[in-house]
């Protein structure tokens, strides 16, 4: 090796060694959250604030002082303590919170949503309505004094589907079917179905929708759910849980699945598993002579395929009794 190469190599080596011993404490202290004050020759523990917002690009104020960067921003070398942090962007409501910065730690406020001051609001349709129904698949349904109408989500393609206009004054609830071909609405005692694609080929004036009352309950209806095949509805009244078959017209089948001991307080329908959860103070099989419990318990009624099979068996055996006329 030539002498010049030896000298160059020696210089490179010693520069590397010096560089290592200079870089290491700086990078390590920065990584660990320490700040070196070279003038005072002191080391401070610091913390990091990480602020992000949706939308981004919002100004950050810390104890009233504007930070140089906008969101998303990493604010380093912060002395431990509590800071009043504000995130502002023109046209949006500000976000404000007291955040605590801990030594050698990162405080994150990175899920801030800034809501716009002026929300975009349009009248979808100029037609006066009694009520409406939304189907993710087919658009908006308008329940009006002149009949049932449908439009797309912008209010366009507005079209009358049916002349039916006898809408109840107090609709307690409404639900679109899983197959999106019909929706139900109900009052305290009555349940109606709107068929959105009825087969009217033999009618003189075919309508694009057909509304039919399918069930009248003797007790007050609490809620109604669609069974997953869209061919049944599960009706929960203050007294019972019933399954109502849509097909069959006047002779449609109605099965009482459960009778409550008391008015149900909690109710949830798991539409993926066709199971209904409810509270009741009864037990399924009360031993003879034993007093009913006054405590409420949570029950789950599984209505999956085996329910359909058992229902068929039940229907074959029974013609009356638990089977009501809708």
């Amino acid at each position, binding site marked *: *090796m*030539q002498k010049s*190469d030896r000298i*160059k*190599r020696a210089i*490179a*080596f010693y520069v*590397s060694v010096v*560089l*290592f011993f200079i*870089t*290491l404490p700086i*990078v*390590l202290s*920065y*990584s*660990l*959250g320490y700040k070196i004050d070279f003038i005072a020759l002191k080391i401070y523990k*610091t*913390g*990091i604030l*990480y602020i992000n917002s949706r939308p981004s690009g919002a100004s950050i104020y810390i104890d009233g002082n504007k930070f140089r960067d906008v969101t998303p921003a990493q604010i380093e070398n912060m002395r431990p303590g509590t800071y009043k942090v504000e995130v502002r962007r023109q046209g949006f409501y500000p976000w404000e919170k007291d955040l605590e910065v801990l030594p*050698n*730690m*990162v405080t*994150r406020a990175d899920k801030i949503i800034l809501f716009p001051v002026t929300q975009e609001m349009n009248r979808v349709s100029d037609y006066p309505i009694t009520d409406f129904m939304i189907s993710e698949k087919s658009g908006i349904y308008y329940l009006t004094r002149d009949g049932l109408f449908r439009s797309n989500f912008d209010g366009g393609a507005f079209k009358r589907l049916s002349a039916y206009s006898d809408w109840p004054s107090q609709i307690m609830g409404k639900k679109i079917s899983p197959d999106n071909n019909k929706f139900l609405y109900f009052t305290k005692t009555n349940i109606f179905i709107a068929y959105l694609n009825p087969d009217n080929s033999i009618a003189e004036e075919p309508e694009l929708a057909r509304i039919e009352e399918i069930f009248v309950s003797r007790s007050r209806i609490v809620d109604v759910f669609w069974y997953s095949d869209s061919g049944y509805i599960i009706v929960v009244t203050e007294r019972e849980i019933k399954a109502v078959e849509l097909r069959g017209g006047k002779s449609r089948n109605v099965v009482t699945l459960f009778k409550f001991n008391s008015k149900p307080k909690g109710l949830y329908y798991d539409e993926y598993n066709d199971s209904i959860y409810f509270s009741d103070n009864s037990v399924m099989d009360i031993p003879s002579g034993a007093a009913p419990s006054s405590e409420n318990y949570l029950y789950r009624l599984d209505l999956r395929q085996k329910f359909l099979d058992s229902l068929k068996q039940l229907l074959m055996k029974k013609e009356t009794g638990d089977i009501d006329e809708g």
Partner: protein
Amino acid sequence: MRDNNYFYRRLFEMIPGFLTWLTLGSLFIFAFIKPLWVAIFVITFDIYWVIRVGYLTLLLLFAYRRLEKAKKIDWLKKCEGAGTQYGLQLSDLYQAVLFPIYKEDFSVLNQSLSAIEQANYSKEKIIIVLSVEERGGDAVWENASRLLEKYSASFFKFIITKHPDGLPNEMQFKGANATWGAKVLKDFVDSKKIDYEKIVISCFDADTCAEREYFSCLAYHYITNPRRTRSSYQPIPVYNNNIWQARSIARILELGASFMQMIETMRLEKFVTFSSHSMSFKTLVDIDYWPVDMISDDSAIYWKCFLHFNGDYSVMPMYVTVSMDVATEKGVLDTMVKQYKQKRRWAWGVENFPYVMMGFLHNDKIPISKKLRRAFHLLEGHYTWAVWAIIVTFIAPLPLIFGGGLFRQTAIGYNLPSVSATLFRVSLFTLGTCIFITMRLLPPRPSGVKPQKMIVLILQWFVSPLVAAVLGSTPAIDAQTHLMLGKYIVHFNVTKKSREK
């Protein structure tokens, strides 16, 4: 004493593997239980590594400049009268080239011999020895015979000899074949009554194509070296024979090996012979040839000389290239397997550590400081080879993966990815240098290769850390583990050299 020897040998065999596993194992365990410690270690190691790589890159640039300068030298002209003051004239010098052969194709050997034939050095002063392994089969012997017929008139002497299989104390390694060939050469040299010191011998792999200036350059270094028998002469190995056709994975690894060899020429205190190299025939005879029971014959011969001459032996770099084949296959997977096997064989050079340490134990004439320095360099080289890429690639993210939410909430947990990324960006300088030198060392693009290949040759470097981890470190760990457990590699896994027809 025999028991003591066994104990020490096993101890030294265990040390490299033990250190490697201790490092990787403890880092892995501590990533679970003390992620903060591992994160601090990773950052410290990253800084050390980036600076070290930067330093080595500078050495690479220095070496490259030397190589470029040396290209402009007319070595033959420089030889004229150069050796007078050192007692050896060019006209008195013979060069022997020994090819230990196993199953290499005719075309591979033909290209290597053709390169020698085209050298700007008097062929009347060159002796070729093809030492053919008997177990290689008749076809190889027939190839050697064809080559004898083709080239015998071109050289001072062309010897072909068959190395019998299963000689006592020999393993089926290249060193045994090379030793056999050298002994046959000695018989010839004795018959001609040529002074051993007036012969410089080059031991080449079958695919080694020497640069046109190689023998002139070697002659100059040899005749002008007053301590010519106390030096080996190491050219820069490049892998240009099939570099355009090779798979990127293989290319990166071989280029990396070339670059490391160039860097080593700048670090003579730890410079060791590698692959094809040359030495005085007198020295070779004095030390009783290559070890016949070690896989890494290329480096083991250096250590044998070092111990024989009580530490008074060195390697002289020659800024002239010899070109070899990239170990590649058509498929990526096959290439990876081939590379893995080749790199594991290279990494088996770790066997030199117990060999050298045992030599040190029994040698009182080498100064203790020199022993410590050389032992450290040897151990550090193999240790670093095994662990660095694993630490940078696989250990570095572990604190974040296993550290849990609390660790990620700490400043260091938060900063670790960005600090590592910044350090990686700094090391892009090295990648840029590697790309630059690759382009300069590349042979002209063959007519059948598309120009777009040039883009691949640049982009390939960006996957180098991963390739280094998978095919650099892993074979080294494999070799060290085998040695540590005493499961010696007893079969020399020859990298198949053949050309597409």
